[in-house]
């Protein structure tokens, strides 16, 4: 089994389109507990990725992920740029070192998650994107090789987003709100869920 270049291209395209379409929702979540720019920033970053889609899809997977990461770093303009950028840069770097898709997806995804954690000096449980990425990584490990892996990853992401609502933020802008951050879904967790679910939908042929 191998991941085909055309499959890769269509999943990047769908992921970018879904993030762009979710910009108003991300913005309204961020206006509640952040500074309200997450939707605009993610939209700008993924529009830049879409603009390079043809070039990206002609690159080997490792270089393609690094190009996506660098594009996000350079265009997003908020903290999410370096955070998502580091995810893709580290995932690409893992692929450059004898990892292959799809069989090493948990290792590759895990490299990305570790990079986000290091960049944000944050762990799961602090009401951030890691509260989606870490449970997704656990599912990728625990359900590896299962026929329903993709559906389980998608469900994990959706449930993980909801669990950020009762959390109290201790990292990022939302931490300034302290207890007032409780009751709101984290915008970064939501954008991570949008990305993960878009990749799942593309791989399952549901567009």
């Amino acid at each position, binding site marked *: 089994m191998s991941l085909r270049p055309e499959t890769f291209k269509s999943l990047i395209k769908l992921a970018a389109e879904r993030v762009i379409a979710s910009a108003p929702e991300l913005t309204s979540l961020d206006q509640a507990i952040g500074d309200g720019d997450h939707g605009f920033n993610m939209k700008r970053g993924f529009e830049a990725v879409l603009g390079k889609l043809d070039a990206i899809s002609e690159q080997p997977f490792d270089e393609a992920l690094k190009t996506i990461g660098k594009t996000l*770093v350079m265009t997003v*303009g*908020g903290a999410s740029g370096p955070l998502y950028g580091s995810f893709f840069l580290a995932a690409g770097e893992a692929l450059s070192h004898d990892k292959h898709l799809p069989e090493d997806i948990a290792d590759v995804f895990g490299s990305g998650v570790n990079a986000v954690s290091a*960049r*944000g000096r944050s762990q799961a449980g602090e009401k951030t994107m890691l509260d989606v990425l870490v449970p997704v990584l656990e599912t990728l490990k625990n359900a590896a090789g299962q026929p329903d892996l993709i559906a389980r990853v998608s469900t994990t992401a959706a449930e993980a987003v909801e669990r950020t609502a009762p959390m109290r933020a201790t990292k990022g802008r939302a931490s300034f709100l302290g207890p007032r951050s409780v009751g709101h879904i984290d915008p970064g967790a939501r954008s991570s869920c949008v990305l993960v679910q878009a990749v799942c939908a593309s791989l399952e042929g549901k567009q």
Partner: protein
Amino acid sequence: MTDAVGIVIVSHSKDIAKGTADMVRQMVGSEVKVAFCGGNPDGGLGTSVSLIVDAINDAWSAKGVAILVDLGGAETNSEMAVEMLEPARRDLVVVCNAPIVEGAVMAATEAAGGSSLAQVKAVAEELSAD
């Protein structure tokens, strides 16, 4: 110009970054190189890694560069910018954990006296000590 640590000011707002740089220049003079940037890649409120890289290179000194930031994204983007510098420069740039205006003035004052990068950072960060 004596060789002094350079100062970079990174705010979400270009107006704040420029105003801070103006204050530093007036209070400290021109012995210290000061560069600033603010705004996202579209020019709205935010920060831009490529503008930060340019500012670091503009303020470059053999003694290094101290960066002062305002809020979260400015810090994360500044750290990313440092990693994107050529390897020989990376270890000579620090992001200070200090209030942006007071930190920039204190850091530049210390830098003007010819202090090391570590001393400049320490003086700026005294402002954040409890």
